[in-house]
């Protein structure tokens, strides 16, 4: 498994090179990669179906219990097979869809990167590595949505998706760490057995909120659903792959994965059911209002994701079974539909449902795929979608306080799905039309084969459910429930209530389809409501955030050196004074007065030089005078250093003073004339600040001197400087040997500062211009 992930990353970054070598044939190796991983996973299937959970550990940070841990059980196998199998088709499809695009190599880079990240996400056996892959999918999704980077809307959508899912990701990280703390492990397989420990922990509620935030943003649940329709700005292969079959299901996967750990409580159940229910209904409602093919598909996807979350929330055995079956069925037919929509868009140049009719003549194979997918989506009899829908109805009709609510939700979405399926699978292609939409180019094999394969898979799974998919789905449900499951998928359940309801759904769905024009006209009346929707809220908060940040930056970074220094000094004073005030030692000057008598003559002389110079400095009105006075003060301080036995420091101080004065003189004649524009109070303000800083430093030093300094360090360096450092100058030995790493850091800072100064002085800005 580790090798599969590694190969994915290698292939991803080799994609641009491969494109240069192979040209349009680049899709062959790129499709072979997911296909070989798919085949490899198939070889592991028998042992997983036999009940084994395969694990693989690569040490990463073992001391923190964070490892690159891979874990394969039924649930992750289902997702991994979906990702790689679907990925193979998408890679082929993208080769046809973006044929001749100059950035095809880069596209494959992003797509393969995403696929690998997604694979890593579902195979991760450690919640920290799960999070890493999770973020990687967000980032690669950002790159893919913004693939058409020359369009403003594309970039905005990509950023929106990144912000929403990225923020969710941050919440998820915090949540997963809390889960790890509650369960006392980050390893998934151990965590799965400690469900009680986690749910009874005090941190359960915050962890739950954070994890759900992550899952809901990723899976486009209300109120975070708005990024998904916008993400349709991506090229269609991306929409089909990321935004219907895999990435948006990552949130569902996470919920399913954590069901044994965090599930079963009231909070979990109600939140999932409420949020999922609202999303289901909302997605279905919005889907009817649109005429853009991809928008319709996006909203029905949201609705389906809502249904999956609701089912996870219900949490009973039938509900979870229904969830995995519906998940697979949905991936099959929705993926097909996305690919079909891409074909139509590619061939006719439009995605508007009202302008497209009678395409079955010119796009025969695409039409067949659409028809098959439509029948699966509508839940007609021999298709896998039928089994999914039946199971969902059965699960919702189970004895529970909310059975009618749940049923109404699933029935409503089912009705809309039927309407959409008729519109897309039948209306678009097979409805007779006097004027079929003309094609820009005939249907291409690379474009119609993947949807045909997908839709036929849906049919085959429906016809032979017991043999092909039941064992895997059973293991997946087991992974969520933690107990052995016995369920058989069958096409025919006999004449019962559920079958009747299915038929009713189809009938009502047809009615919705017939009157969809009128419904759309009616729905436009509610457009005013969208102003209060979460999408607008997002725009507002983004705008407000940017404006706020601009304001704060403008007030903090105002470009005046004096305010920066004032801020630094003030912070310094406040922090030190606060900590001294709270529990610092008190200054006792009384018994230290005799020390004044030990004052030596030259110390007094130096003091008499410094203090008048300072007072003079406050009053000086010329730069040259100020610099000269600063020089006097600096040299006097250097003399103090010499008096107190620090020749190294004194030498440095002297040299720096000299340099400062000389450099000042160099630039002196280039500065504008010295004028005093600010009010006198401004000057007193800074004088006061300097005095406060001086007082604080004096106070601190007096306190420090109050206690005898007995540090072992001094003795250590004194003893070892010559023995270990081969030098008699302790200061220098510390600088270049004992603490050389610090010095290295300091000189790096010095070099960076030099480059910064260069950049700042070379940047010739006009007045009022911004950098």
């Amino acid at each position, binding site marked *: 498994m580790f090798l599969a992930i590694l190969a994915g990353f290698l292939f991803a970054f080799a994609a641009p090179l491969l494109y240069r070598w192979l040209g349009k044939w680049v899709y062959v190796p790129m499709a072979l990669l997911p296909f070989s991983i798919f085949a490899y996973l198939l070889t592991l299937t028998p042992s997983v179906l036999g009940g084994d959970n395969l694990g693989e550990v690569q040490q990463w940070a073992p001391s923190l219990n964070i490892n690159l841990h891979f874990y394969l059980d039924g649930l992750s196998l289902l997702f991994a097979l979906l990702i790689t199998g679907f990925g193979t088709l998408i890679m082929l499809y993208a080769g046809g869809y973006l044929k001749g695009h100059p950035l095809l190599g880069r596209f494959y880079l992003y797509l393969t990167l995403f696929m690998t990240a997604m694979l890593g996400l579902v195979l991760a056996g450690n919640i920290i590595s799960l999070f890493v892959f999770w973020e990687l999918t967000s980032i690669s999704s950002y790159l893919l949505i913004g693939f058409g980077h020359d369009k403003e809307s594309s970039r905005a959508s990509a950023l929106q998706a990144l912000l929403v899912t990225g923020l969710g990701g941050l919440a998820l990280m915090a949540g997963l760490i809390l889960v790890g703390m509650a369960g006392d492990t980050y390893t998934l397989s151990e965590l799965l057995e400690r469900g009680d420990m986690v749910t009874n922990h005090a941190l359960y509620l915050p962890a739950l909120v954070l994890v759900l935030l992550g899952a809901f943003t990723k899976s486009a649940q209300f109120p975070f659903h708005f990024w998904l329709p916008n993400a349709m700005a991506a090229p269609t292969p991306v929409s089909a792959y990321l935004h219907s079959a895999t990435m948006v299901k990552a949130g569902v996967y996470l919920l399913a994965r954590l069901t044994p750990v965090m599930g079963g409580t009231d909070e979990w159940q109600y939140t999932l059911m409420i949020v999922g229910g609202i999303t289901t209904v909302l997605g279905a409602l919005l889907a009817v209002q649109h005429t853009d093919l991809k928008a319709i598909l996006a909203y029905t996807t949201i609705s389906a994701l809502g249904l999956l979350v609701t089912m996870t929330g219900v949490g009973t055995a039938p509900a979870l079974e229904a969830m995995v079956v519906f998940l697979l069925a949905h991936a099959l037919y929705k993926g097909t539909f996305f690919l079909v929509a891409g074909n139509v868009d590619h061939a006719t140049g439009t995605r508007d449902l009202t302008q497209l009719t009678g395409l079955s003549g010119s796009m025969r194979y695409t039409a067949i795929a659409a028809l098959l997918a439509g029948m699966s989506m509508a839940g007609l009899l021999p298709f896998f979608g039928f089994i999914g829908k039946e199971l969902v109805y059965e699960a919702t009709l189970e004895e529970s306080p909310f059975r009618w609510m749940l049923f109404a939700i699933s029935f409503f979405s089912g009705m809309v799905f039927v309407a959409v399926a008729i519109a897309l699978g039948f209306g678009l292609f097979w409805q007779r039309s006097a004027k079929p939409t003309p094609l820009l180019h005939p249907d291409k094999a690379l474009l119609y084969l993947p949807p045909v394969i997908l839709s036929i898979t849906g049919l085959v799974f429906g016809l032979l459910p017991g043999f092909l998919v039941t064992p895997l789905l059973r293991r997946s449900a087991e992974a969520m429930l933690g107990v052995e499951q016995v369920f058989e998928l069958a096409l025919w359940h006999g004449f019962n209530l559920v079958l009747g309801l299915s038929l009713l759904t189809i009938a009502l769905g047809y009615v919705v389809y017939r009157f969809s024009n009128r419904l759309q006209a009616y729905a436009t009346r509610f457009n005013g409501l969208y102003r209060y929707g979460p999408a607008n809220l997002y725009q507002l908060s983004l705008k407000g955030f940017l404006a706020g940040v601009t304001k704060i930056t403008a007030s903090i970074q105002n470009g005046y050196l004096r305010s920066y220094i004032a801020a630094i000094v003030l912070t310094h004073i406040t922090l030190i004074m606060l900590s001294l005030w709270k529990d610092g030692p008190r200054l006792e000057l009384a018994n230290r007065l005799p020390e004044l008598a030990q004052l030596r003559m030259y110390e007094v002389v130096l003091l008499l030089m410094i203090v008048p110079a300072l007072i003079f400095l406050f009053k000086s009105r010329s730069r040259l005078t100020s610099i000269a006075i600063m020089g006097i003060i600096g040299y006097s301080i250097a003399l103090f250093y010499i008096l107190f036995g620090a020749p190294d420091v004194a030498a*440095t101080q002297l040299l*720096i003073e000299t340099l400062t004065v000389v450099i000042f003189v160099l630039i002196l004649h280039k500065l504008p004339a010295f004028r005093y524009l600010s009010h006198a109070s401004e000057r007193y303000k800074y004088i006061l600040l300097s005095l406060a800083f001086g007082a604080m430093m004096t106070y601190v030093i007096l306190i420090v001197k109050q206690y005898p300094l007995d540090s072992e360090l001094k003795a250590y360096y004194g003893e070892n400087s010559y023995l270990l450092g081969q030098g008699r100058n302790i200061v220098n030995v510390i*600088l270049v040997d004992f603490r050389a790493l610090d010095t*290295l850091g300091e*000189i790096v800072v010095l070099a960076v500062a030099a480059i910064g100064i260069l950049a700042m002085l070379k940047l010739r800005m006009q007045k009022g211009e911004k950098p």
Partner: protein
Amino acid sequence: MKTVILATAIRILIPIFIIFSVYTLFRGHNHPGGGFIGGLIGAIAFVFHTMTHGPHQTVNTFLKINLYGYPRQPNQSRSLYLMRMMRVNVWRRRRLARHPQLKERMIRIEPIYIIATGLLLAATSGVAGLIAGQPFMHAFWADFYIPILGKPGTPILFDIGVYLLVIGVVLKITFVMSEE
């Protein structure tokens, strides 16, 4: 700033400054001094020169190397060409007249290069420890003394790095500030 006395004096003083700064650098391990102080002393020499003669003059005098050369003939062996080039550059004045195609080439040492060299030297001095399987910055010392300079070892290399970096930084700042 044109002051004849300082301008003349600094030209004589610069070699003394440099020698003293190198001496300070090496004595730093046992007596007051070291890379930082040495670098500052060395830099001050150049800063004074810039102050009196202007940055262009300083660059032309100290940070430019003029080489003479002609393009290599296609059938000429590479090593022979290199040796000729070296000879031409050592005795260029005599040869200049006889080679009409001899061209002047200028190599300019940017202060940034000095900074980079210093940083590289300081960083790599620690790598010796890594190669020997010791922690980064582990010190190695020779067993003999060099008169005046003292005992050679990797920390001295580190100090030389600091020295070069300080000179480079001060020169860069000075040049940028005085250029206009």
